[in-house]
């Protein structure tokens, strides 16, 4: 059963991603790709970068999943006071801008640690823990625990229950989360730029370096292609595997699956989750402390300075940055929700080509931000489509990053919709379009609300693509924080810390507000 003309839903997302991603990417690759660009593949340095990129991504993914699984269990299967608060706390890092986290990590860590593999992996775990907790936990909370009970009744120990019942059921969700974390860490830019050292560089940073420092467009285009192909291959394999491992099962309401802390195992898991929460809270606390530390005393000086507009063109009042960031976010959310909503419907309602559409929407996440930025610059350069220097180009770039997250939020909900609801409506004489409006749309709109929250958070914190798009108005919050950090003196670092706290607060509020919209069966990310 399909709603009317389901395929038409695909037109909008295809057009948007085609015009604002595929076309600029093709233009810049066409301009850059040449036989001499292949030289970069013969250089030992390139393969060192590829090796480091892969190793750190695998380590980060493994560690994130290893630490995320216990927390996902504790926060979605156990019932204890403060559960929601911990869940919110562990979600905030995912939406924090990398410049802020980089600054916080640098403030916390002793100097010899800077630029090491360990620091990069630690920061990646900090960022992506939320992905595992949300994706796996969201699924886990709907698993019917009677399977496990049955196994126990039949005499299985906890290890056997996990190995033969829980793990096989959970595997597809773990795989989905791992694929996402791998994607995010493999293409990591901000974290590596801020925390990495000269010998700890990812492909994404190397593409940036070749584009911006060396003006080696052929080399950059080759590496960009290499990165996209690698990422898409991993995503497609993970998708296939996920479907092969999927087990058909009845899911239950979330509340039905939680239980109070009972066993020693539960206590250990809960303790581990608490430790993780404290570690995640530390960098955020460090920022708050730094924003209140004036020389060797405490004070609100940096906070007061935020409202003051300095004398030069570079001094922007913080509230101008907030205004600009928020208005970009509003537009980016509108685009992402409309396009992402249509894409989710297209993927959910059609069989043929839905995999490809899904992968195509993910492609911007796997593509170097500087490449997209330069592509937009040389593609939309003819009036009346000269978008260079126009503000709209920024929310468009942010929407490209936010759309896949909206799809990830909405799609599971649409797929979980009981088809019998639609059958009942049709039997009662409802037309297909009316069925869609009365059955699907209410569920869809709630899920889109949650997706909008994530889209807003992504837009507020985005530091990749948009930092390469020039504009004359005030810089966004992350860009302004980056500028403050690039100048010496406590006046600048103090204000950067205060502004970071403002950004953390705004993002946390947006995410918490979106959470209230959550449909009981909403997918999560």
């Amino acid at each position, binding site marked *: 059963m399909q709603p009317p003309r389901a395929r038409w839903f695909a037109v909008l997302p295809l057009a948007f991603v085609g015009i604002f991603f595929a076309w600029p990417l093709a233009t810049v690759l066409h301009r850059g790709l040449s036989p001499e660009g292949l030289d970069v593949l013969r250089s030992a340095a390139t393969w060192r970068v590829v090796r480091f990129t892969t190793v750190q991504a695998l380590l980060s993914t493994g560690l994130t999943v290893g630490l995320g699984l216990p927390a996902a269990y504790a926060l979605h299967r156990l019932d204890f006071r403060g559960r929601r608060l911990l869940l919110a706390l562990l979600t905030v890092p995912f939406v924090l801008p990398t410049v802020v986290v980089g600054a916080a990590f640098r403030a916390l860590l002793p100097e010899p640690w800077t630029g090491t593999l360990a620091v990069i992996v630690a920061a990646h775990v900090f960022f992506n823990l939320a992905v595992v907790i949300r994706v796996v936990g969201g699924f886990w909370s709907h698993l019917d625990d009677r399977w496990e009970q049955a196994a126990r009744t039949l005499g299985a120990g906890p290890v056997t229950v996990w190995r033969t019942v829980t793990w096989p059921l959970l595997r597809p969700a773990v795989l989905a989360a791992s694929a996402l974390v791998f994607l995010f860490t493999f293409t990591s830019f901000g974290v590596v730029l801020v925390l990495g050292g000269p*010998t700890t560089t990812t492909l994404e940073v190397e593409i940036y370096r070749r584009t911006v420092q060396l003006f080696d467009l052929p080399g950059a285009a080759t590496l960009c292609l290499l990165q996209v192909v690698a990422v898409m291959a991993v995503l497609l394999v993970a998708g296939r595997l996920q479907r092969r491992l999927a087990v058909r099962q009845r899911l239950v309401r979330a509340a039905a699956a939680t239980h109070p802390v009972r066993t020693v195992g539960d206590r250990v898991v809960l303790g581990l989750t608490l430790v993780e929460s404290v570690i995640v809270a530390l960098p955020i606390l460090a920022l708050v402390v730094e924003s209140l530390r004036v020389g060797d005393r405490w004070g609100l000086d940096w906070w007061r300075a935020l409202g003051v507009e300095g004398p030069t063109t570079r001094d922007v009042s913080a509230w101008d940055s907030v205004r600009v960031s928020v208005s970009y976010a509003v537009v980016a959310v509108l685009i992402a929700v409309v396009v992402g909503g249509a894409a989710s419907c297209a993927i959910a309602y059609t069989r043929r080509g839905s995999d490809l559409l899904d992968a195509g929407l993910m492609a911007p996440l796997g593509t170097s931000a500087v490449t997209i930025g330069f592509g937009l*610059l040389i593609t939309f350069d003819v009036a009346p489509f000269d978008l260079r220097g126009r503000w709209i180009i920024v929310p468009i770039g942010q929407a490209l990053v936010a759309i896949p997250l909206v799809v990830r939020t909405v799609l599971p909900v649409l797929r979980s919709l009981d088809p019998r609801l639609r059958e009942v409506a049709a039997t009662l004489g409802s037309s297909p379009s009316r069925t869609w409006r009365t059955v699907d749309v209410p569920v869809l709109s709630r899920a889109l609300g949650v997706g909008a929250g994530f889209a807003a958070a992504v837009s507020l914190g985005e530091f990749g693509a948009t930092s390469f798009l020039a504009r004359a108005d005030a810089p966004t919050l992350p860009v302004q924080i980056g500028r403050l950090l690039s100048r010496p003196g406590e006046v600048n670092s103090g204000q950067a810390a205060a502004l970071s706290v403002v950004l953390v607060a705004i993002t946390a509020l947006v995410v918490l507000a979106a959470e209230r919209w959550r449909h009981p069966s909403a997918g999560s990310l």
Partner: protein
Amino acid sequence: MRVTTRRGLVAVLVASSALLTACSSSPSVGSAPSSGVPPTAVPSSFAPTTVTLLTHDSFALTKTLLTDFTARTGITIKVVNDGDAGELVNKAALTAGNPEGDVLYGVDNTLLSRALEAGVFDPYLSPAAASVPAALTAATAGAVTPVDVGDVCVNLDDTWFAKHQVTPPTTLAELTEPQYKDLLVVENAATSSPGLAFLLATIARFGEGGYQGYWQSLRANGVKVVNGWTEAYEDTFSGGGGKGTRPIVVSYATSPPAEIVYAAGPKPTKPSTSVMTDGCFRQVEYAGVLRGTSNPLAARAVVDFLLSPAVQADVPLSMFVDPAVPGTPLPKVFTDFAAVPAKPLTLDPALIEKNRSAWVDAWDQVTLR
């Protein structure tokens, strides 16, 4: 390799300022084709119009200067910060002939050749540049106008050296001596502008045949390499409010005055850091009219404005660089604490563009692998 030395030789004027003035209206030099601007003088006022100034993220000027300029000439300057200097120049090179704006400010001598080769500019040398030392206009082929200069120099944490009773180093060569083992932090030449400038300083000093040996010695003496200026100065350097432990860092000749200007609370009477005046690399920043602008005369007026006495006097405290026009009054914090390297090092922009990639790769091999 051409190694020029200047600054202090500020009195050396262009041999014929009249020639330069003439050049400004009928550009005959430079590889970029002209967009057909009539050889008229730049008028002093315009019908209300807007000029888009593309520049890097570090650009800043006192806002009232811009509003005064608009009131006087009818030109509104729209400032677009377009990433760091490399990003700015590369974007301009990609869009040469169909530019994002009218004027570009912030291309420096390490990037100039790239911009000239791509035909980014409509050649224009402001008449006001007549008083600028010849060394600053030497490599420009009359295509762009020098606006300011900055020196990348080794900075020292005076407090650390006093406390440990170690004599501070005074030359590049001394940095390889054992008493300075594990004390120096530099920026990655592959990712950082001051990092590249310092590498170029060592090439200018020790020659293409000698710089790798110098870096081998630095490496043996425990040099630490970090990715950017922020990581070097704020995280690894022990002075200037830095949180690190190393008392020698590559930064700017103006970092000590910046330390005073950006200090919290009551300003200290003197900086805790000083500048090693040997081995400084001179960066010159230029402004130019972008080829393909629809507003060439107003664009020229903006380039002239950047060399006007008011703007020249403003650049020290707004951007922490030195004005290009000699005799411009400097703020007290500059005259007191900014270092004036006697013999700053520099290299020909064309030579830099030609060899940058190979030099950086060789440096990477010697220093990091």
